[in-house]
């Protein structure tokens, strides 16, 4: 599947434009591509260059990274947090996306609006909200104590739990919309066929719908995982200072230690990881299906 689907009526207006017609697509694309090259790709190349050539050419910043136990720990925390976030986001998004697929009209619109409102709210704001809810005097602790479940406030902030809770909430709208897009492409007559042949609703779901939805699940999973790897705000606000993610490391090296080669090297490592995963995603699922872009 190519990105941005094939034109419906291919070479239209070509006769009227004659020879200029062949130049036209290049002229239309050029400004956009030039902008991206200058303001996005060139900076990335420069960053990778800065990681290699601080004082003459050296791989030293990378040597420091890969021999440092701290960096290894940060990488493990980052990958683990992103992986667990992805699993929970998929588990919670699946029923929501399924409900969107099988419901129609007003119910679908209502679920969609409630799913999308948080997507339009700042990540800082949503992380901040958990800070209020999970604190010692927060609503969750007060409720638990009022119910007599615990006698003293539980320490729910600044640990993997609070980071996970907020990150899953932040990534859920995107996961749901991506899954929903994939589920809409499933041919629903196959489920009807299964039911006609005597399958119960559950059996039809389990043996027909669910297997057909798995490629969509893998796609959404890859996407959420890539985005989760780069999270900064949520772990910085809600996480333990002893368990930081790679974006926080890069931030500290750049803005506090002003160690540009080291920050650039860590940035290059993160860039290579996310670009590889995005390339795999693009190979199998094509990036422009995000946000329901191509077909719906």
């Amino acid at each position, binding site marked *: 599947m190519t990105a941005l689907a094939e034109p419906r009526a291919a070479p239209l207006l070509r006769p009227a434009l004659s020879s200029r017609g062949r130049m036209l697509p290049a002229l239309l694309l050029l400004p956009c591509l030039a902008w991206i090259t200058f303001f996005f790709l060139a900076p990335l190349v420069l960053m990778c260059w800065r990681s290699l050539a601080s004082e003459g050419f050296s791989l030293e910043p990378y040597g420091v990274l890969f021999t440092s136990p701290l960096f290894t720990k940060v990488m493990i925390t980052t990958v683990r947090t992103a992986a667990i976030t992805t699993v929970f986001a998929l588990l919670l998004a699946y029923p929501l996306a399924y409900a969107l697929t099988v419901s129609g009209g007003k119910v679908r619109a209502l679920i969609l609006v*409630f799913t999308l409102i948080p997507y339009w709210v700042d990540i800082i704001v949503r992380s901040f909200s958990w800070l209020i809810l999970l604190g010692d005097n927060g609503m969750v602790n007060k409720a638990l104590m009022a119910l007599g479940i615990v006698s003293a406030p539980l320490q729910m902030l600044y640990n993997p739990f609070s980071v996970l809770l907020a990150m899953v909430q932040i990534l859920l709208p995107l996961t749901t919309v991506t899954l929903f897009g994939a589920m809409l492409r499933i041919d629903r007559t196959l489920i009807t066929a299964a039911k006609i042949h005597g399958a119960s609703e559950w059996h039809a779901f389990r043996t027909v719908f669910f297997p057909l939805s798995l490629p969509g699940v893998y796609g959404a999973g890859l996407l959420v995982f890539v985005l989760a*790897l780069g999270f900064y705000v949520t772990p910085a606000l809600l996480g333990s200072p002893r368990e930081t993610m790679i974006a926080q490391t890069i931030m500290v090296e750049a803005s506090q230690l002003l160690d540009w080669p080291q920050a650039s090297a860590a940035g290059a490592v993160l860039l290579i990881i996310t670009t590889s995963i995005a390339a795999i995603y693009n190979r199998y699922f094509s990036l422009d299906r995000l946000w329901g872009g191509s077909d719906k």
Partner: protein
Amino acid sequence: MSATAGRLGLSAAVLAVLIYLIFPVIVVVAISFSSGNFLVFPPPGFSLRWYESIAGDPEWVNALWVTLKVGSLSALIAVLLGVPAAFALVRHVIPAKALLSALILCALVTPPIVTALSTYLFFVPLGLVNTVVGLACAHAVSGMPFVVINTSASLRSADINLERAAVIHGAHPLWAVLRITLPIISPGIVIGAIFAFVHSAHELLVATFVLGGVGKPVAVKIWSGVQATSDPTIAAASAILIGLAIFTFASAAATQSLAKRRTA
């Protein structure tokens, strides 16, 4: 499992997940109207004092103004460059199309900290650090995918025959595009621009590196506030952003239904 039990289970799961999604938003909005001095939920009473304190604080007003300028300029750049690109990608046969559209979209999956660091290193020698224009140029890159995606979707569903009819009747092809097709796909362009604007207003890391010193935009100011203070001003500032988001969301939905009516 019986069908009704399955339905019931699904409804319960959907309800629970929706509450989990919406609750943090409700909390921040409620606290912004709090009469108390601290960040507690539920708030002790109702007041508008935190909004008044934002309106009366030149720093916050200035931050909102900076966000508005950066967001509008970056959305404008994204539209001017993204719309022609969408035309090329949808209507023309071009080599390496998949690669080109992936290139346009890849800003969305690049970790913001990487974009921020590289943009900063690139901007320092160019003198673009600490400028509104510099930040808008950087934000335009991540705004472009939203414009290209939404414009392409509109363009694909627009009826090409209207444009052909104009050309057959003697209109210059460019004129036909400007006068016939552009108005038809304008809702898609507007939605793309709104997405681009909201993305810019929320973006923290590039903003911190490029415009983190003087003349901070709202996101940067909220972030420094979240880490330092503990009174509901932050909640009010956040609620203003939420209000802005819901307003844009509603106008996007309105534009979309308008578009449906027009194309129907």
